[in-house]
């Protein structure tokens, strides 16, 4: 098995795809307005014709690269290239003001690498065990797992619980469209033949994440970006290394844990790591003035999320963040169903993903240290030309999956919807996660009742079920109890 994995990853073709993915990812991440999710959604159609391993590794390369690339514009332009780099702006731009942007980029590169490697190690160690545990799940446990995932998504992914639930439920409702998997009854198809097989998942994703983002860019299309400064001395100094080695591994672990939690992505990972580093520091007041800790922590934290997000995705089919949700789409296109069986039936694929992700992190480190000047040039690509090209990529990408123009219409519809949802401060990620977890919840709920002949006690029959029920209650009631306690304190 080991030989097979080594053979499959260390072939010229796969290494080329990984490096190409990371390179593209860094460029996409560096450009403000192009997010990691958008990048992965736009590259996804290119993998339809590929085999599973190179296709998935290309996408993972884009993911890893884009999360790191966001720091380049955060440091140089004071604009996070991706939401994941928002925390890096705080200290990163202070370096640039002092003319030390090279130093800041070096710290960011090395810290991202450490965070990424920590998360790949966690992925490697935790997922096989978790998959073994998940093998024991049957319908009731999978139903409760999906409910737990949905509750967590609703409660953390936006500013308002009500809006999170609305959006998640919208995603679930979309999943109802098409022939019911248990009874074969057509639901919400309105006699439209295109809807019989259900809402195509990938055009919805491209619309919500890429197209709507492109519309947002159009708003500011006539305001030019600032010019950048020269980069020198990227390799960190001895004192910077000390800081990096102290903070990056811890932040990597924090990022990984946050990545595992469904719905919490790289943005949250970066902010929590930043906060943790500040709390640990002997001089918290210096955060925000341009200190190396302020870059090392969030950058290791956001790349830590990359591996963590894949853990529940590969082992249980529950996406850890929006990118992991697209990767589920990518695997499904290849005829692979993420979940515990992936670990027993497609072992080579799973371990090739682990090893490939490790290689992607090395590629990121090498590209980051050697070619920063090139990536800085990417920042001057005018969005006035890039944005219309993204329109074309969205259209072609959603057409390519089924070669059906109906899907292009679906993509544009969700692009427009996503734009207005962003305006109303409704986060779109819960919809996509609902679209994946909805069918998982529904089919397993009904299958469980088929198993028990209609008795609802099957949902409390196993210890695993109790754990999920408890976690769900904790997620939903936790914030309410927390708020009540805060109120009590303030009135006392």
């Amino acid at each position, binding site marked *: 098995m080991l030989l097979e994995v080594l053979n499959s990853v260390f072939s010229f073709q796969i290494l080329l795809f990984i490096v190409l993915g990371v390179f593209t990812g860094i460029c996409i991440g560096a450009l403000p307005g192009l997010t990691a999710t958008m990048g992965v959604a736009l590259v996804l159609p290119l993998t339809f014709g590929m085999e599973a391993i190179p296709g998935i590794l290309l996408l993972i390369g884009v993911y890893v690269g884009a999360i790191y690339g966001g720091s380049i514009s955060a440091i140089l332009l004071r604009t996070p290239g991706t939401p994941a780099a928002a925390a890096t702006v705080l200290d990163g731009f202070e370096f640039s003001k002092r003319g030390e942007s090279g130093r800041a980029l070096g710290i960011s590169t090395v810290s991202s690498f450490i965070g990424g490697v920590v998360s790949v190690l966690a992925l490697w160690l935790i997922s096989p065990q978790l998959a073994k545990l998940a093998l024991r799940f049957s319908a009731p446990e999978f139903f409760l797992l999906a409910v737990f995932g949905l509750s967590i998504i609703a409660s953390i992914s936006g500013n308002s619980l009500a809006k999170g639930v609305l959006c998640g439920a919208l995603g679930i409702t979309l999943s109802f469209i098409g022939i019911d998997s248990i009874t074969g009854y057509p639901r919400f198809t309105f006699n439209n033949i295109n809807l019989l097989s259900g809402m195509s998942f990938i055009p919805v994703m491209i619309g919500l994440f890429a197209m709507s983002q492109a519309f947002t860019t159009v708003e500011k299309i006539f305001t030019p970006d600032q010019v950048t400064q020269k980069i020198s001395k990227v390799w960190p100094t001895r004192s910077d290394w000390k800081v990096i080695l102290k903070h990056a591994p811890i932040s990597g672990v924090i990022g990984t844990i946050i990545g595992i939690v469904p719905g919490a992505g790289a943005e949250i990972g970066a902010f929590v790591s930043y906060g943790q580093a500040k709390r640990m520091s002997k001089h918290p007041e210096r955060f925000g003035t341009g200190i190396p800790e302020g870059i090392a922590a969030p950058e290791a934290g956001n790349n830590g999320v990359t591996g963590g997000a894949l853990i529940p995705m590969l082992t249980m089919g529950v996406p850890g963040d929006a990118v992991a949700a697209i990767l589920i789409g990518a695997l499904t296109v290849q005829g692979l169903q993420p979940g515990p069986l992936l670990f027993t039936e497609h072992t080579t694929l799973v371990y090739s993903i682990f090893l490939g992700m490790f290689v992607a992190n090395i590629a990121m480190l090498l590209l980051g240290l050697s070619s920063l000047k090139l990536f800085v040039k990417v920042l001057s690509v005018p969005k006035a030309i890039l944005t219309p090209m993204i329109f074309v990529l969205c*259209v072609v990408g959603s057409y390519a999956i089924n070669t059906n123009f109906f899907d292009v219409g679906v993509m544009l519809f969700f692009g427009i919807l996503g734009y207005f949802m962003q305006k109303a401060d409704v986060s779109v990620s819960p919809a996509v996660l609902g679209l994946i977890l909805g069918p998982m919840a529904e089919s397993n709920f009904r299958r469980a009742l088929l198993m028990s002949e209609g008795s609802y006690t099957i949902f409390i029959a196993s210890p695993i079920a109790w754990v999920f029920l408890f976690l769900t209650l904790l997620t939903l009631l936790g914030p309410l109890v927390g708020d009540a306690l805060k109120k009590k304190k303030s009135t006392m």
Partner: protein
Amino acid sequence: MKKANFIVSGVFAAFAIFIIAISMGYPPSNHGVPGPGMFPILIASLILISALVLAIQTLRMPKSKDTAIDLKSKNVLNVYITMAGLIVYIVLMPMIGFIVATSIMLVLYIKWFSKRPWWKCILISVVFTIAIFLLFGSVLNVPMRFGLLI
């Protein structure tokens, strides 16, 4: 934000009622196993409750937290025009053909957004369109030939 919240709440509530109305007509449960209508009704009820909660929260929101949402400024109007243009593009593309429709769409948007000279816009657009056509059509084997022209 208040107004937007009410719109969100109203639209979702109407959507939920629509879903419930349709699902009521689906076959009933069978020996305790829920039929195809049960989950949609459950989820739509959840939407209805959340929409109500959002409306109540918004009513109780202090005025200081009420931020205006930009839906009418010139920048946003540009977005609306862009959306309309793209709708025309995807309606016409299957009839005209990919290369011609896409090149024209790109030339117009790039000229509008970047104000570069026409010849540059045309060059960029045609080269990019042909590159995408070859990439998807020849390398990835997506059938890209349709419409009257190419």
